[in-house]
């Protein structure tokens, strides 16, 4: 029998429903696991002191016969970009240290209503700007597969917590890959829903035309179960889609129980193939594509010439929107205030506060944003970026006339060593070439592990991209591929994480 903390959310749900386990037992097991391993992993910034009390209340309600909900009593970790009552929210920044939100984000409200147990808040790159969690003002998070490597970012805390069995479920935000890329680097699953599919109310905004809240877990089904719970219309998010979503969990179950892939048209983007891809990563991808063909799918090469410019367009658009969104940190309503000596001017206080409170990457992107929106630059760089965005959107539209789904690698390499990112920021940004296009076009995209790279035995992530609102097809296909990996390797990728965490304690 597995340890409690090794069980999936779906398994925990069954055992809780059958009263084989109590919410208190499940919560304790995860809190103990956190106590044992989080000194090494540093996935959490804050733990929820109310976790056990919440679990007790859920057990009591269940004993009294009230219907508690499918995931009632199942623990969850929340990325620190989402505001929570009762726990501080920092978004990984010194400027928000100690901030206590007077309200809950909509997705947090939903998980509370559904009786999930919040374990705590997870580490992230400052204001979600980064791909390694190294820009967090509160220290690095370490990849449980190899503590010398990064867990990806910006949601490295949530992904590492999943991989280290500190939680079975996590919430993240994805502006250019911040849910999917950490999932890929840690052998876990992460989903960026269709833009507007899950409410962003109460998420500290980075770039509003790109940001999307989404679920993460170790399995495709668990990710789908959480997706079902958080999806839906929210009048408090100005871009929320008012539609009836199909059950993602049903789609995942259909995929894992042998739903046919016959006739599924899978696109492979020609322009994403490159010599820069790590050998072992490329081999896993080629095997996966071969397996799809063998199992009845039709693999079609699609041309997306503008995708090579997507990274450039993305960083310009993101910086512009971030420079506006982050102007709210002005030393007045919340957060840090630094008052320089001998000053009486409000502007000096604001500048000193923002100078002391923001880290290097945040300053870099705010300044870039201000610059590209300035006279002379707006009509050239910024407008150019917006038009490239249109080209990317149009190319996806055309591609989805020919294919049902697009498969790519989530990233070109496995997790790299901490402090080994390039000194040239543009070179680092280029690694996000496969994840960024989905945000520009608002498309759903799922990352799931497809094995380990031969040369370093580190996890490799596959990305499945769908047309807008086709989130369920990604879960169905993803679950089929997950089952393929289990059949091929004898176990799921996440079960093969080295068990050295306690030993190094």
């Amino acid at each position: 029998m597995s340890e409690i903390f090794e069980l999936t959310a779906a398994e925990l749900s069954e055992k809780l429903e059958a009263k084989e386990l109590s919410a208190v037992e499940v919560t304790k097991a995860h809190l103990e696991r956190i106590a044992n391993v989080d000194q090494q992993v540093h996935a959490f910034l804050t733990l929820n002191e109310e976790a056990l009390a919440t679990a007790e209340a859920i057990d009591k309600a269940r004993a009294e016969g009230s219907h508690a909900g499918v995931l009632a009593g199942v623990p969850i970790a929340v990325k620190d970009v989402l505001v929570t009552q009762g726990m501080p929210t920092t978004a990984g920044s010194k400027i928000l240290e100690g901030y206590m939100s007077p309200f809950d984000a909509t997705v947090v409200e939903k998980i509370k209503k559904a009786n999930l147990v919040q374990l705590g808040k997870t580490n992230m790159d400052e204001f979600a700007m980064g791909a390694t969690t190294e820009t967090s003002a509160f220290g690095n998070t370490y990849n449980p597969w190899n503590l010398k490597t990064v867990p990806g970012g910006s949601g490295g805390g949530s992904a590492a917590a999943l991989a280290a069995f500190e939680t079975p479920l996590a919430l993240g935000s994805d502006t250019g890959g911040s849910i999917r890329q950490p999932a890929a680097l840690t052998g876990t699953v992460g989903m960026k829903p269709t833009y507007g599919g899950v409410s962003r109310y109460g998420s500290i905004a980075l770039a509003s035309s790109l940001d999307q809240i989404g679920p993460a877990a170790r399995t495709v089904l668990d990710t789908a179960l959480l997706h079902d719970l958080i999806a839906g219309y929210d009048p408090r998010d100005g871009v929320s889609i008012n539609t009836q979503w199909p059950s993602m969990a049903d789609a995942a179950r259909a995929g894992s129980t042998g739903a046919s892939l016959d006739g599924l048209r899978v696109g492979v983007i020609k322009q994403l193939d490159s010599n820069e891809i790590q050998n072992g990563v490329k081999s896993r991808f080629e095997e996966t594509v071969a397996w799809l063909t063998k199992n009845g799918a039709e693999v079609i090469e699609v041309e997306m010439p503008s995708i090579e410019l997507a990274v450039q367009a993305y960083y310009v658009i993101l910086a512009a929107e971030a420079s506006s969104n982050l102007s709210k940190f002005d030393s007045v309503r919340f957060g840090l205030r630094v008052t320089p000596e001998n000053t009486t001017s409000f502007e000096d206080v604001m500048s000193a506060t923002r100078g002391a409170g923001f880290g290097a990457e945040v300053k870099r992107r705010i300044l870039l944003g201000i610059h590209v929106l300035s006279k002379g630059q707006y009509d050239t760089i910024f407008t150019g970026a917006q038009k490239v965005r249109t080209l990317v959107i149009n190319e996806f539209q055309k591609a989805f006339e020919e294919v049902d789904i697009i498969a790519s690698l989530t990233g070109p390499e496995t997790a790299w060593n901490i402090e080994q990112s390039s000194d040239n920021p543009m070179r680092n940004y280029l690694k996000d070439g496969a994840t960024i296009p989905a945000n520009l076009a608002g498309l759903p995209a799922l990352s799931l592990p497809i094995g380990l790279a031969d040369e370093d035995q580190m996890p490799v992530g596959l990305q499945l991209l769908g047309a807008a609102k086709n989130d369920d097809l990604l879960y169905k296909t993803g679950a089929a591929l997950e089952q393929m990996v289990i059949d091929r390797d004898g176990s799921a990728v996440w079960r093969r994480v080295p068990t050295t965490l306690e030993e190094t304690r």
Partner: protein
Amino acid sequence: MSGNSAPYSGAETAKLTTDDVRRIAHTAQIEITDEEASSLQRDLSAILVGVESLTEFAQLDVEASVRPFALTNVTRADKPMDVLTRAEALQNAPEVEDGMFKVSSILGGEH
């Protein structure tokens, strides 16, 4: 940070001077040190060289997208909903006086 790739000493063409960077930082209301001004000058120049090809698309005859796809604005009836109380709105403020946010003088001069 030590890079694992070729040594990097800034873009070949400096797109911005350190004075440009100081001016932009002033607009952004972010105080920067001299050291930061020079590293930002290097980094922003590299990024601007990296995104230079976008300018070729500025004149292209397509719409400039401000969002991923057409969306209908979410609206609601114009009636009061649950809002923050004054205490909640002020609970995170660095300085409060008489139930209001307190700031230094906006126009300079006396506090």
